[in-house]
């Protein structure tokens, strides 16, 4: 009983730390072999259902601008600049997929795929789609850590 209360407390402490400090900032991402990222960016698993909105919405990841996902037949106008994402959950490990989402240029050096969780190294970065210069004070990555983990959780369900 006593022991349980103590561990409960410890866990509560950890969970608190998770909310306050465990989110990995774009500059602090730790790469393995330069292509994979083992740790969740939020410190917790993502939500696959929320990931569907990220991959299909223009305002979020808009992955379907370039990729087809046959599991989402209701999402109109899927592009084909990149390979179909069918089966990606079987082709790559979770850590590799996280790396591809954070910055695909680690895995595919000259790829057309944008880096979704990087904030430096751009030429004339803009303020969204306004054609004006980005404000360095407010400039953020294309996806939040949460959106990225949700996308990743969804991709892991795309197995063959």
């Amino acid at each position: 009983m006593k022991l349980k209360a103590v561990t409960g407390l410890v866990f509560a402490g950890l969970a608190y730390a998770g909310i306050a400090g465990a989110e990995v900032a774009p500059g602090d991402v730790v790469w393995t072999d330069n292509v994979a990222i083992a740790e969740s960016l939020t410190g917790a698993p993502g939500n696959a259902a929320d990931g569907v909105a990220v991959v299909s919405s223009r305002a979020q990841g808009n992955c379907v601008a370039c990729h087809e996902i046959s599991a989402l037949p209701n999402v109109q106008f899927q592009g084909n600049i990149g390979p179909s994402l069918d089966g990606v959950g079987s082709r790559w490990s979770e850590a590799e997929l996280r790396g591809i989402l954070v910055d695909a240029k680690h895995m595919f050096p000259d790829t057309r795929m944008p880096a979704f969780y990087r904030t430096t190294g751009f030429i004339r970065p803009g303020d969204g789609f306004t054609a004006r210069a980005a404000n360095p004070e407010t400039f953020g990555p294309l996806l939040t850590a949460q959106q990225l983990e949700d996308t990743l959780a969804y991709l892991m369900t795309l197995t063959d």
Partner: protein
Amino acid sequence: MQHLKPVKTLALASACAALFAGAAFADPDLSAELVINDGELTLVTRAPSDDVITPNLPERYSGWLFRDAATREMEMDDFENPAMLAVEAGADLWTTVDGSAGQSCADCHGDATESMAGVRAHMPHLNANGVLWSMEDYINNCRTERMGAEAWRWSGDQMTSMTSYISMQSRGMPVDVQIDGDAAPYWEQGREMYYTRYGQLELSCANCHEDSTGLMIRADHLSQGQISGFPTYRLKNAGIVSIHNRFRGCIRDTRAESFAEGSDEFRALELYVASRGMGLSVEGVSVRP
């Protein structure tokens, strides 16, 4: 790629095969012929590539080939082509007196069907001082220096009407711009820009219009991004779009800080992109979705 394990390489190979199949279904209809007014004129929509200007293109294609049949047909009939309203407005402006000198374009240049034939085909080109100018610059220079009139806005209605009217006088002539001699530094600057990956999406013109020709980016079928059809009537905008306005939009779409219409950068880019279409017909005024 060196990081890929053999299994992954295989997966990617099949993904590439799938990509190829994708490219096939989205390919432009290369057999389509751009015939104007039931045979009055046939425009060249496919021209040979060369190793100097377009070493990475198998062939040069007009953007017209990539459009659906309904949009293509609008450009084939001057009564259906909505850009012809701008051409008519431009013809009116040609003879309209404006400014303190009390003159119209026609007072100096006479009949545009003669004096302006070929102007679009060679645009942009160096002015008498060796500076690269676009058609808009020549027009505004005449207005401010010769007519004593106000300059028009780069993409304003009057300017796009006038560029539409003047461009029509070169319809059917092959794009033929000077890229050597004093034009060479501008051309190099434009080429540099074409391969620069601007914006937070880090996409160059070449990433979309050279590496992805024929593929779909969401609902859009990517062409080679040629300007031989400009000015263009864009159905989406319900109006005429200038070359620099199109450039601005494409750079904006990479989540970048764009360049201004009429900037030195866009003049240089215009020369380079025009050269990538050498041999294609000037379309006069085109129709795009």
